[in-house]
């Protein structure tokens, strides 16, 4: 569930909360140029949907780079560092035992586990961080109620601007999408 950034709540005639406006486009090029216009109009809570990845869509949508790599780096280095500390503490402090005539603090033997824990924690941070940043997992999405939207996995291209966006306005947002060349526009209820 998206939490509205503003206190404004839009409802339909039947008193249903509005999730956003869904606009359909006929071609990838139309979607690309529509995305540029939505971006330039200053919207932040919106997304595009297409059956296949469209090259350059990140720039057309003005998507900023994710912070996931930074999180993964923190996870990975913490994993490696903690792994090394754990083994050092175990072998040289907590339970000293001579193994193969090597010193207690034989860093060579710590490397594989240090490496593995680095990998493990970066992989966990990566998958959990990705899910969290995407707002996943979730049971359902308002867009799935729209029959038309199912064609986003076949041959149609969509823009959805959410009502939670501070710039959202039922008429103005609709007008913008019309101007951008949408072939059909509809309201999506939550």
């Amino acid at each position: 569930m998206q939490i509205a950034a503003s206190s404004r709540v839009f409802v339909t005639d039947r008193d249903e909360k509005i999730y956003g406006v869904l606009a359909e486009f006929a071609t990838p090029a139309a979607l690309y140029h529509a995305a540029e216009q939505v971006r330039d109009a200053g919207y932040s809570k919106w997304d595009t949907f297409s059956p296949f990845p469209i090259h350059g869509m990140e720039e057309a949508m003005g998507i900023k780079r994710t912070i996931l790599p930074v999180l993964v780096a923190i996870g990975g280095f913490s994993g490696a560092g903690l792994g090394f500390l754990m083994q050092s503490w175990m072998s040289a402090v907590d339970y000293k035992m001579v193994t193969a005539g090597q010193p207690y603090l034989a860093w060579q033997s710590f490397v594989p586990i240090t490496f593995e824990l680095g990998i493990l924690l970066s992989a966990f941070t990566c998958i959990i961080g990705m899910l969290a940043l995407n707002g996943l997992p979730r049971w359902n999405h308002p867009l799935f109620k729209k029959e038309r939207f199912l064609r986003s996995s076949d041959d149609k291209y969509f823009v959805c601007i959410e009502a939670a966006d501070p710039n959202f306005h039922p008429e103005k947002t609709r007008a913008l999408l019309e101007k951008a060349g949408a072939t059909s526009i509809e309201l999506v209820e939550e």
Partner: protein
Amino acid sequence: MSSMHANPSTLLSADNITLGSAGAPAGKGLGTGLVAVGVLLAAAGLGLGLSKGGSTAMHAMAAFTVGVMSVIAISLGCLFFLMVWSLLNAGWGATIKRQFENVASLLPIAWLGLVVILIIEIASKGLMLQWLRPEFASDYLLAKKAVYFWGVGGPGDLPLFFIARTLFYGAAWWYLTHIVVGNARKMDATSDPATAAKLAAQVRFTSAWGLPVFALTLSFAAFDYLMGVDFKFFSTMWGVYYFATAAFSGLGFVAVVLAVLLGKGKLRGVVTEEHFHDLGKLMFAFTVFWAYISFCQYFLYWYSNIPEETAFYLHRKTLGWQYLGAFLMIGHFAVPFLFILSRHVKKVRGLLMATGVWFMIVHVADIFWVVRPMVYPTGDGPGLGGAHLDVLGIGGVLLAFLGLVIAKVGSLPLVGVNDPYMGEALEHKNYV
């Protein structure tokens, strides 16, 4: 989708893709000069050492070997990427391929360094290659390994199998570069796409069987001229170790060449930050690969602690060599790993160029670490007093190689304009 499509004909205009003025190849004087100085220095180093004999001769020979094996690694690394791209149908590299070709084309010349080593070693009865020495003629381990060195006969005879192998490396490397690089040159001369496609197909066919040949010749050259310095030592990792450093140094060297060319105002819009980004990814990958391979080799020997294996590391963990080893762990792995981990750094030409220069330093230090500790095994060396021999031998070979690269880069268009993948490479972008 982007509206920023630049016109290929302006990007590939003669001014943008040739060094110097029309018709007059650039860098010929500088290149020839460097080659002359380099060869003189290397010859002076060898002459100085060999005339003194004993450990000093060994020292000079070791320095020369370090130089030769370093530049062979750089050329082999470049040849490797050309063959792999051809096999994988990789298009993005078409605009940077020419510089890989320039460096790879020097492989047969670099191989001549091996011939020089071979002749001096046989004539001197094993300056560096100890198995040639009469003192080891009755060694038990050498008798067991005699077939690999001599084929027929044994200590005291001419090492026929060893000589034949070296000649085979030369023939294989000449043929592979002749096809892989030569066909790219032929493409320059044709404007017919069908002919270009045919030439590219021949490169692919050659790469398919050439890659195993490449792997075997690289491994055995590394066995013969690096691992063979101590015939009692053996490592099944050795071929991979040399390959790792070859791919590592080839990438670093080309990154520097490309950055210099862009700094001269060439290749604008042809080699973009996207190409540097991908080059940087490969450099990062082989930084990690080298660390992985070299640690694995060390770890197994440290762990099993068998005398004939640990001798190699004992030499390199005593008498001050441990500091060079520590430098390699930090400089060859930790520093580049942390530095080019960031996506931003890979895209900035100047930063990637600095990384490439650093790669060259640690690459030579790596080969130095392999060869040089064997010269004064008991630590009775002249210390820094003998540094001039290292400078002459290593510096001479590197300078000559650099001169050859400069002359080569200046003599040809900076990209293969008729490459079938050129269009794809000009539009290349990392969409993640």
